[in-house]
């Protein structure tokens, strides 16, 4: 799991011409790309005709535009292998990784590429995602018991739940689609699904001793999530964000804040009940 930090920066153009120059001559299929061009002050969709090659993905087309049609087009990318989470965009109205979205799946229809909406636009397809890094810093990190620094012997049953959370590539597509952040502009109230995944990975860790329920209930804003699952639908890593992260966390928050029976038990015992009783 990445904790954020350095990312590919906005680039104007990258020399990747070899591939294009090697393309065989002769008539080729051409796809129309409507790409957003502009910045915070405004912008528009601009059409580009891009020759289609076999196995081509949307990021290839963006590179083609940069190299052959308009070198001022800005996009962020890094791995071209769906692993760095940099190339997020809205392709035909759906949050996607451009490097994982094949051109042939649109069957010759025009393909619209816009930047993700939730975060402030810098230029063209590049947005400022630094809000996420600030949120990340607000989450108490992994905290083993004092004097228990490891190495630890981990049992499969204790850690298997955590594996899927660790697949997160921080593409923030889930943040983009989440209606709390997107439609209700809730970045001041809700951390968003990506950070529910991160908190779930920490909270369910058998060696972690910190409690993040108060944070979840308060500033983290888990109550704003209404489990409508759009985040899960767009996650390129197929993380079961709602069923395996958010809902289990909501149940833990219910233990701590909404369950009168548990509150009574805590009061009678005069201490916080141990997890899982």
């Amino acid at each position: 799991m990445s904790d954020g930090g350095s990312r590919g920066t906005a680039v104007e153009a990258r020399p990747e011409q070899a591939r294009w120059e090697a393309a065989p001559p002769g008539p080729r299929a051409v796809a129309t790309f409507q790409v957003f061009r502009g910045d915070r002050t405004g912008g528009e969709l601009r059409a580009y005709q891009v020759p289609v090659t076999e196995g081509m993905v949307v990021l290839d087309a963006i590179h083609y535009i940069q190299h052959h049609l308009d070198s001022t087009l800005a996009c962020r990318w890094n791995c071209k292998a769906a692993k760095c989470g940099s190339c997020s965009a809205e392709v035909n109205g759906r949050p996607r990784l451009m490097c994982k979205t094949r051109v042939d799946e649109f069957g010759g229809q025009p393909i619209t590429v816009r930047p993700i909406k939730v975060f402030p636009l810098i230029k063209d397809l590049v947005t400022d995602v630094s809000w996420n890094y600030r949120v990340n810093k607000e989450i108490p990190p992994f905290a083993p018991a004092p004097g228990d620094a490891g190495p630890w012997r981990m049992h499969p049953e204790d850690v298997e739940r955590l594996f899927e959370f660790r697949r997160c590539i921080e593409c923030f597509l889930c943040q983009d689609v989440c209606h709390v952040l997107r439609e209700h502009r809730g970045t001041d109230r809700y951390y968003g699904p990506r950070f529910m995944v991160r908190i779930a990975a920490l909270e369910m860790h058998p060696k972690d001793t910190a409690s993040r329920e108060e944070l979840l209930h308060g500033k983290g804003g888990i109550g704003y999530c209404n489990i409508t699952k759009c985040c899960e639908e767009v996650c390129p890593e197929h993380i079961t964000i709602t069923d395996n992260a958010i809902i289990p966390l909501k149940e833990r928050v219910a233990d701590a804040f909404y369950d009168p029976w548990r509150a009574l038990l805590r009061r009678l015992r005069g201490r916080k009940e141990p997890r899982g009783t």
Partner: protein
Amino acid sequence: MAEHTATHSAAADLPWWLQPAATVTILTAFGLYAIWAALQGHGYVAPYLSPFYSPPVTIAGIPISPAWWVLWGPFGFRATCYYYRKAYYRSYFLDPVACMIPESRRRYGGETAWPFIVNNVHRYFLYVAIIVLAFLWRDTVETFFPGGHFAVHAGSLLFLVNVVLLSGYTFGCHAFRHVAGGNLDCFSCARGGRLRYGLWQRVTALNQRHAQWAWASLFSVALADVYVRLLMAGAMPDPRLF
């Protein structure tokens, strides 16, 4: 946060409205049917007790249909179920009606404010639903012994399918998954951890199909009631199979 001209919130894949429209139609139809069935005031023909009327509760001096004493439990259970929450937030409250579709509502409290904050007590409805389910199992077993002898009728099979579907739905509940073991951080160090891990895994398997259990059991419970009412009206026989 960002409001820039780059994004129009229009999803390309249509028709996005189909699923919400179907959900509204089916849930509303079921709700109206349940109210109608409860208003009938009775739902028994030997050996079948309609699931809307089980357990049979009457309180002397309060002349209301016995169904009302029961239905609030399963109703509350479904109304606070994580799956149905998704379904009705999307289709009745358009919050969101589909992913990437703009919303018109300005004020949004999610589950932090009345009335949806109540959904946080889903577990208590689960406890009630488990009690009701125990009665439904008893009723189902009784349908296999009409007159004290074992026999299999079409109705008893229908009741069996219904109670199995209801059990799959109830025990695949997220709140049950939580108490079964989801609330543990360390299975290997907890008391009875291995047992709870096994239980949690089984509940998880049911939970992965929770939506399907939810719909299937909704239909089966309505069908069981319809069956009882048809028998009560003498509109059809109850064929004996064995």
